């Protein structure tokens, strides 16, 4: 019991940046500045986190089931982003509401990406890049790019919400060098 509390405590203590709300461009730029400028003293690591942030934040903006209209009248996705800072790595997580039918292909894509070597992933990215962009985000390449940038597997989980929707969380570890 004691250690479970300590463990949870540590998870909270390690939060470097967290945000929940609308993922419009205004917020994106505030969060991006925060990541680029202040997260780590190592520019290379900041850039990796930043690249991952852009792709995953855009996925929330485009695909989150929960939506709001921002000040400019644009319909934008709502979600959560958390960056945790540990001694030798960061963990970057995003979460958003979704439906089971929309998220199953995304989870399958994550499994597929995780099963590939770096060489295979680069090949897969080339293949996807040559396909016409089906939807506005080009979400297919985004996840591949996240895995390549982090050089670590994509971890995901799904939580059932009281309203019948699902909350999808994707996390990736970024090693400090």
């Amino acid at each position, binding site marked *: 019991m004691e250690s479970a509390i300590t463990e949870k405590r540590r998870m909270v203590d390690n939060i470097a940046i967290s945000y929940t709300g609308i993922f419009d461009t205004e917020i994106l*730029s505030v969060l991006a500045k925060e990541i680029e400028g202040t997260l780590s003293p190592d520019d290379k690591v900041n850039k990796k986190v930043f690249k991952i942030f852009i792709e995953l934040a855009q996925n929330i903006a485009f695909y989150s089931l929960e939506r709001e209209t921002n000040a400019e009248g644009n319909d934008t996705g709502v979600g959560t982003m958390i960056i945790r800072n540990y001694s030798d790595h960061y963990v970057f997580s995003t979460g958003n509401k979704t439906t089971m039918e929309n998220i199953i292909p995304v989870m399958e894509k994550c499994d597929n990406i995780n099963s590939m070597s770096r060489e295979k992933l680069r090949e897969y990215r080339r293949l996807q*890049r040559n396909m016409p962009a089906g939807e506005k985000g*080009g979400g297919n390449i985004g996840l591949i790019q996240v895995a390549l940038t982090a050089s670590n597997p994509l971890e995901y989980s799904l939580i059932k919400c009281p309203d019948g929707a699902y909350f999808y969380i994707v996390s990736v570890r970024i090693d400090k060098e």
Partner: protein
Amino acid sequence: MELEDIVIEGSHKNFFTPSVNFNAKTGICELSGESFLEDTQEFYKPLIDWLEEYTTKIKKPIAFLIKLTYFNTSTSRCILDLLNVLKDYEDDGGDVTVNWHYDENDSDMEEDIEDYMIDTGLNINIIPF
């Protein structure tokens, strides 16, 4: 027939606009800075059209210089489109040079450039700075 130069000053605001300098007289075309745009297609379509115009009507040598330090994945598709126009021109007998400058600490970027070479079949001079 006159092809107008494209000059766009880059910015780093809510979105990141790359700097563009396409010169019809010298054939030197430069794309630099960072690319993360609200509407990527809308931004790159005129650049692709310009290159098509240059390579089918003006048909002089072209030196394409890329100095992007960051681009998101939707930009990556547009870069492929630009390079494919240059490859078509080269296959057509056009004189094409592509120089891609990148930060030598950015090994991801180096991989990216190598993958573009495989994809397009273009010879890209990879130049670390």
